[in-house]
Structures are given as C-alpha cells and as structure tokens.
C-alpha cells in the first residue's frame, strides 16, 4: 500500500492509471527493443553499422573496441597484468562480500585484531596491484601515462578512497575537538574543499602542485589527480564520520575513561566502531560517489574508463559515429560496480547494524 493512496482516492479509477503506466512502458520497450535488438548489428562490421544510420544499435563497436575501452593504451602484449589486477580486485570484493556476512559476536578474532589484519592485507594488495600495473622487480616498466580504462579507474578510486580515510578521521576528530587551534583549521579545510567544484581542485593539482615540488615533473599526473581526489574525498568523508561520531553518547566515553582507557583507546575501541556503524549508509553513498567522481580525472587528461573512450574511438573515423553504444557499455560497467557497492553496503548494514550483538 502506498503513502499516496488515501481513502478518497481508493474509489478512483486505478485501472486507468495502471493502463496508462502499461502503455508508457510498452512504448518505451518497443522503441528500445526495435533499436537495440531487432534492427541492431552485433558483428564488429563497421560498414554494416554505418548502413544502419542509427536506426538500429551498433553493438559491434564493443567486440571491435572492447579491449581498448577496458584497458586504454596499456601495451598490448602486457595486458595480462591489468587483467590480473581486475581479477584481484574482484576476488577482494568477493572476500569482502563473505566478510560482511560474519557476525561480530561470533567472529573468531577480536575486532581490533581484525582491523589490523584488514589494514595489512589491504596494504599488501595495494602494493601488489601497483607493482602489476607499473612493473619493476622483474616485470617490464609501464609508466602511469600508459595506464588506462577500468584498471586506472580502480587504481584512482580505490587508492584515493584508502588514502582519504586517515585524513578524514583526523579532520573529523579535529573538527570535534574543543581546542580552537585544532577545530578551526579542520573546519576551514573541510568547508573550503566542499565549497568548490572537484574540477577546480583537479586543476589545482594539475597546474599548481608541480610548482610546489622541487622538480616540475617529479609527480606524475596520476599522483596529482589522486592527491586532488583524496583531499576531496577526505572532506566529504570527514563530515560523514563526524555525523557518525555525534551519534555516540558522551557517557560511553566517560565510562571508558573510568575503566582506564586513554584517549586513543577510547576512540579506537569505543567511539569509532559505533560511529562507523551508525554512518554505514552514508559511507556507502560516499564510496559510490567517489567511484563516479573518479571519472572527472578525464578533464586533466587521465584516460580512465570514461576518458579512455574518446582515446579509443575519437581518432577512429570508422567507429567514431558509435560513441553512444560504447557509452552505454561503459555506463553498464559503472552501473554494475555502483550496484555492487550498494549491495555490499546493504549487506554490511543488515549484519552489523541491525543484527543483535
């Protein structure tokens, strides 16, 4: 029963509304199926696609340009490395999915230990991932300017997400501190970053950061983009965490103090676990937002999943007219990742927030 239905509306004509909705749906389905299925060209045949003149979809662009779309300009013969990275990230996601099902009360290791294990595992995975992408120590070197597509999106999004956590924690705790010399700068940084568009932060990273380092090109474009995204993510994450921190009753801190815990112990063992659990829905939203915002790195010339598209299609007169189909494919990849994150968040919520114990 919906909230809109009122006793006075219950006597209306529901069949009219239902029929109208059905008609709209049928019309949309008809248009899409005719274009995307019946008249579509699935073979990677550019001539056949051109002959359709957009009356049907040209899905052939995906098999023809798929590897380029997914991996950008990464050296062809070394493609197994970014592919392995994708496998690694998928396995990590699967492990997280399993982990999210563990109930805190019956988990074998104490909570704090598990956090340490998670951090150690994450660091190892990050180093392995960067080694796979960049090479060195026995693998051929691939400079980050040649990285692209989905692996680059994952490196940028996951990297800046991980890096922004400690920064955000510091900012959130500082903003809540009683000392003005902690509270004011943290507030200023958070509000400044939240008040300007991400594009301007990326421009700052692209144009101003090189002037602050001793050598202009000592930081790669990737590192600078990640610096901007980390700062951006940290400012928003800090506010999410601050909202979570506010839900923890002050009596708990007092109780922990009476029990003899120090400030750091109180934060780590009492306040933060509860704060992060309370903020879980907002944390999911923030992670999804960061994944989507990583696409903005394209405006300073990083060819991640969105930017890689213009790289692989823009210079190709044969496939250039079929950007739209390729865009839909890229949108599907983003959609699946965001949907997966949302599901993961919901699963964690169900187990950690609503479950007893």
């Amino acid at each position, binding site marked *: *029963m*919906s*909230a*809109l*239905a*009122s*006793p*006075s*509306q219950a006597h209306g004509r*529901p069949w009219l*509304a*239902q029929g109208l*909705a*059905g008609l*709209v*749906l049928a019309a949309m389905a008809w248009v899409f199926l005719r274009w995307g299925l019946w008249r579509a060209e699935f073979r990677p045949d550019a001539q056949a696609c051109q002959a359709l003149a*957009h009356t049907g979809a040209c899905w052939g662009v995906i098999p023809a340009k798929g590897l380029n779309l997914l991996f950008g300009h990464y050296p062809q013969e070394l493609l197994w490395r970014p592919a392995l990275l994708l496998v690694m990230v998928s396995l990590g996601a699967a492990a997280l999915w399993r982990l999210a099902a563990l109930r805190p009360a019956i988990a074998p290791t104490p909570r704090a230990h598990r956090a340490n294990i998670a951090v150690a595992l994450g660091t190892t995975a990050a180093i392995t991932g960067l080694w796979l992408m960049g090479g060195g120590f026995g693998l051929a070197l691939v400079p980050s300017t040649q990285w692209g597509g989905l692996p680059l999106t994952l490196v940028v999004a996951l990297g800046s997400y991980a890096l922004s956590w400690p920064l955000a924690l510091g900012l959130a705790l500082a903003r809540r501190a009683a000392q003005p010399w902690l509270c004011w700068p943290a507030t200023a940084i958070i509000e*400044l970053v939240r*008040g*300007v*568009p*991400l*594009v*301007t932060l990326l*421009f*700052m990273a692209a*144009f*101003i950061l090189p*002037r602050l380092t001793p050598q202009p090109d000592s930081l790669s474009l990737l590192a600078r983009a990640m610096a901007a995204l980390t700062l951006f993510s940290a400012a928003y994450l800090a506010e999410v965490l601050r909202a979570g921190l506010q839900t923890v009753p002050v009596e708990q801190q007092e109780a922990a103090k009476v029990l003899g815990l120090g400030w750091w112990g109180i934060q780590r063992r009492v306040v933060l676990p509860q704060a992060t659990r309370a903020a879980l829905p907002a944390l999911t939203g923030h992670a*999804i937002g960061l994944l*989507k*915002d990583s*696409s*903005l790195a*394209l*405006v300073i010339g990083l060819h991640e999943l*969105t930017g890689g*598209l213009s790289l692989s299609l823009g210079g190709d007169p044969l496939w250039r*007219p079929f*950007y*739209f189909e390729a*865009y*839909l494919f*890229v*949108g599907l990849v*983003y*959609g699946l990742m*965001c*949907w997966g994150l*949302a599901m993961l968040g919901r699963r964690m919520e169900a187990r950690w927030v609503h479950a007893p114990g």
Partner: protein
Amino acid sequence: MFDYFQQPAGFDIGETGLMLYDASQPLWRAFAVGLGNTLRVALPGLVWASMLALLLALGRLSAVPLWRRMAGLVVEIHRNTPLLLQLLIWYFLLVEWLPDSNAAWSIAPGLWLSKGGLSFPWYLADEHGIWAWTWPVQDTFNVIGGAAVTPEYLALFLALSHYTAAFLSEVVRGGLLSVPRSLLEAADILGATPWQRITRVWLPQALRAIVPAATNQYLNLLKNSSLAVAVGYPDLVSVGNTALNQTGQAFICLGTMMAVYLCLSLLTSGFMNWFNRRHALMGQQA
C-alpha cells in the same frame, strides 16, 4: 592583481548569453561572462530538476506498482552512472543524432531542434529599437529569428537537471514519507479535498524535512556545472581555464574561480537557511 584583470582578455567566448563581449574587453569581463553562463545553465537547471524530482518522487510513491517500478528504474540509472558520462552521452546524442540545421526538427510551434541547438521565441528589440516577440523560422541554411541555445548548453542543462533530479527525488520522497499518515487521514476525515490535503497538510510539513537536504543537492548542481569544461560550454571554469592557459597565472585564475564558487555556495545556503527558518516558524505558529 587588479591590473591583471584590467588587461585585455585576448580570447573569444563561444556564447555570451545576454552579455556583450569581444576579445578586446578586459579579463574581468571574460570572467563575468563565464559566471553569467554558469548561472544561465544552473538556475533553469535547478528549477527543472525540482519539477522532475517532484514527479519522480510522486511516481515512486504511486499506488500503481508499474509507476513505482519505472520511476525507481529511472532514478537508479541516473544515480549509478557518473554525471560526466551522462553529460557526454547527451552531448553526443545532440550533435550526432539530431538533423542538420538546414532541416531542423520542429518539436512544437516555434521550437526548432537541430545540431545547431534549440531555437525558441524570444522578446527582442529590432533595429529600430522596438521590442517584440520574434519567432524562429526555418531558413535555407539554418533557423533564424528568436533566440537559440547551443548543443553544449542543452547537453549540460539536461545532464545536470536529470542527474540532480534523481538525487533530489529521493530527498523529496523521504520528506513526503516523513509526514505521519495519521495526519493525512485526519485531513481526509475533516473533509479536505485531495488538493487541500497535499498543499495544506502534506507539502508544508514535508518541506521542513526536504529543504536542508535539497540545499545540498542544489549546491551540488551548481558545483557540477563546472563539468561544462568537458563539452566546451564556456562557464566560469572553462573561461578561467582558457585565461590560465593564455596568461599562465594559475594562482590568480584558480583562486578567482574558487572564491566565486565559495561565494555562490554561501549565498545559496544562506538563502535556503532563510527559507527553512521561515517555514519552521510557520510550523511553530500554526
């Protein structure tokens, strides 16, 4: 710093809205045109997004399951893909799939859509200084008369407003659901018409929950309008970026952009706070 903004800009701007501008004008005029372009896309986008959001929210709360599903699908599609991707899709559709401007597509009387953009009737002064409505008509090579917006503007407007509407609809839905059903039933029992029930009972109370969260979404729209740089619409960031590339003054150009956005953010949240206070007060007096 002030000298910097007084020097001639030296670059042209593709579309200037209602402002007069050419490359010989001082740099601050170029920034002003950029800001004008930002507002020209953000303000109508904000209105359109709000209207769409209300429609989507009502759809998701509809008594008809099919409407609920469809509205939900639209919202999820827009929320789960990057805005930049949606912007590029809109832009590509407009410049690739629309007819050429010598055979524009008439979507309604006086509205012409083509690769050249959208032409619509507008109140203009002719060469004798007489103000009148002019109607666009199809000419040999393009559509003349009235006013027109470029495909860049249209793409940005559509992408921004649809993306924001998807997020805003969740805010609106949450606000509408936050009003206890018992109050709506009470309104029914007191003999309120369906219209009164919505405008006198439901919306005023829902607004109180909606306004603070909607402010965030409005600010996001404003900041997201900076994605204009990806399709070449000359908004504040694009103009600033051009100035930066021409003069190399990264600190001044970026600083100006950021300061302007900060001021706009403060103004918007100030206005919304005032609006919120007014509504909260009305609630207390009632």
